């Protein structure tokens, strides 16, 4: 194979490029070749207003030619690379191993950066707000990582628990005057309860079926929130959700019992944003700590064993259903806590914030970051949410870049950025990473 490809077989390469050009033609002809244009009344001899079809075959020709030449060059490049390269790890997998070899340092650097970020001179209100958004997704990613990454259950409706948490707090605060800090654990518990409620009938399904049912559950929650307007406010949502306080100190312009008055500083609305930033940072760290701790407990090992082989688990006396339920409930709990935070940050929630694309986004963060990897999820969340915001200017290309990044990750590192698994316990003391090819993905 290697000797033959080193000779650059032109006919084969031309044929490949020709096929690619043909595909491009089939796609470009209707998409680029024909364009409808609205014409004002009377123009071009047409009576009345209408649409005309503009044909642009020159554009099609250029596109097809570009694809042909590009494919040809790509072929040459490939062949040269195959000929030149000795068998060994690819460029991309080397990037990954550079990262995984030093995860503790990298994680420490990330935590340090997160702690100091709001104090940096460049950290204006917008940047800190973006930091809050990123950390919210980091927390959601870590919560979902328990379900998808550790237990191997594909959950496409995770945003439902986020919604349950947010609405729990909003309703408790509006009707019963609960404060944020009291409602925070309650929202988590309510979400966990819903996780169990959903889990009972659903967790006997596996794989694709589980994914579809969880997706449906996510939509059900949103639609109920949308239509039960007496209770949830329907599409108008719920507003006037109270802001969190720091040991009873309010972040408000009044002087009575407020943060700035207590510390004797000038009132600045950024104080509240920075406070919120540290709240979500703490919550995310708590999620991470609990997850890492659970991994070393029997329940965490059972989750991973479940992902590896469910039948073997049954033969060892593990109650598969209950074990899955705990994963679902704990994942849902963190989703609910994040939802409670979201409600207090926004001060206003509506079903629009809990659409399917949010679930897909969180799942993408987990999958791209690496199933089961805490650091990978944090990096993926920072890159994806951060990049999403930074490219807000060039909105039209945002989804394109997003899709492109996903394709690249899937080609280079199909198991996610950090795909290795660290053992939860060792005899020798040294935790050697287990290669991604060994670790199972779970079958639902």
């Amino acid at each position: 194979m290697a000797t033959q490809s080193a000779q650059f077989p032109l006919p084969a390469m031309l044929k490949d490029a020709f096929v690619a050009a043909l595909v491009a033609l089939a796609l470009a002809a209707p998409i680029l070749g024909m364009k409808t244009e609205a014409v004002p009344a009377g123009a071009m001899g047409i009576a009345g207003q209408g649409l005309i079809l503009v044909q642009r075959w020159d554009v099609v020709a250029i596109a097809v030619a570009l694809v042909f030449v590009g494919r040809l060059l790509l072929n040459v490049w490939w062949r040269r690379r195959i000929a030149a390269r000795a068998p060994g790890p690819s460029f991309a997998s080397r990037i990954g191993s550079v990262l995984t070899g030093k995860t503790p340092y990298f994680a420490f650097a990330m935590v340090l950066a997160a702690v100091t970020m709001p104090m940096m001179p460049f950290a204006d209100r917008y940047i800190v707000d973006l930091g809050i958004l990123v950390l919210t997704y980091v927390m959601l990613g870590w919560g979902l990582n328990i379900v998808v990454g550790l237990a191997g259950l594909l959950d496409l409706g995770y945003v439902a628990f986020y919604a349950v948490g947010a609405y729990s707090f909003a309703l408790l605060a509006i009707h019963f005057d609960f404060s944020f800090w009291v409602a925070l654990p309650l929202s988590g518990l309510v979400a966990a309860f819903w996780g169990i409620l959903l889990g009972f009938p659903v967790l006997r399904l596996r794989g694709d079926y589980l994914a579809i049912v969880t997706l449906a559950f996510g939509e059900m929650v949103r639609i109920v929130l949308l239509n039960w307007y007496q209770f949830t406010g329907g599409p108008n949502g719920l507003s006037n959700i109270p802001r969190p306080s720091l040991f009873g100190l309010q972040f408000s312009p009044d002087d009575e019992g407020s943060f700035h008055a207590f510390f004797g500083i000038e009132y600045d609305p950024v104080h509240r944003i920075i406070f919120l930033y540290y709240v979500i940072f703490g919550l995310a760290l708590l999620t991470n700590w609990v997850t890492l701790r659970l991994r070393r407990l029997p329940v965490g090992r059972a989750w991973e064993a479940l992902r590896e082989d469910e039948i073997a688990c049954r033969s060892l006396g593990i109650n598969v259903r209950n074990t899955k339920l705990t994963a679902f409930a704990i994942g849902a709990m963190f989703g609910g806590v994040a939802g409670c935070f979201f409600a207090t940050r926004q001060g206003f929630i509506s079903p629009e914030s809990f659409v399917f694309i949010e679930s897909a986004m969180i799942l993408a963060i987990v999958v791209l970051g690496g199933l089961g990897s805490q650091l990978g999820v944090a990096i993926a969340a920072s890159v994806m949410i951060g990049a999403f915001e930074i490219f807000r200017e060039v909105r039209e290309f945002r989804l394109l870049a997003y899709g492109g990044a996903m394709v690249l990750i899937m080609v280079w590192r199909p198991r996610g950025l950090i795909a290795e698994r660290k053992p939860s316990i060792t005899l020798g003391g040294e935790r050697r990473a287990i290669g991604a090819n060994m670790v199972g993905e779970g079958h639902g």
Partner: protein
Amino acid sequence: MSEPLLRVEDLTMRFGGLLAIEAFSFSARPRDITAIIGPNGAGKTTAFNCITGFYRPSSGTITLRHANGRTFGLERMEGFRIAEKARIARTFQNIRLFAGMTLLENLLVAQHNRLMRASWYTFGGIVGIPGFKKAEDAAVKKAVYWLERAGLIERADDPAGALPYGAQRRLEIARAMCTEPVLMCLDEPAAGLNARESEEMNAFLRYVRDEHDVSLLLIEHDMSVVMEISDYIVVLDYGRKISEGTPEQIRNDPKVIAAYLGEEEAEAAVAAQGGGA
């Protein structure tokens, strides 16, 4: 004779129109190595799956009796409860290890229920109660013991999926032993092993039986293994029991030879055995 450990009576398993096992009865005595043999498709693995709770039998009863006199009706129990309460462990024909987890982790997962209780169902473990630490140390000690017995202690921190085939089989048995079973069901423990490995496997199984007071029930194709280590053999063909007895009796039973070799060769074989061997 002592009370049988396992008593299977009139076990029948139907899959739609297919009758996989019909009125199958046998019993296994404590501390015996009992083998179920038979040609491919005879229903051996189906019988195993009924005993270990992976299938619910269409009819019949399966009773397990512990040394303390406690009995369990296995045909009514859920699979994981059979493993936990009745203490039946099993291995699989196509090895089922947790490939991405280390050997040590594999053996700790096998001690899940005890560790779960010690960690107060996670609530104690998460705050680090001392009782859990102690239980985990004991669990690691037990895992180390079995890794040493299986000759795998050097590779304790390697992923199970990286082991060679024969070692994976031994690890699966070690993992099953970590659940402290009274009855261990082995589905073709010697499949895919070479002669030397299969010899080692025999020694390992004998050791397990002698030192740990566990009875073995095994399915096996490899006659050298079966004849050498079994105390009692049950022969299945087309879902029915056609013979049972000691290895000596089975070896000379024309019905068994017929089932394995076909009628005509069987007659020749019986004639040859009568003269030689």
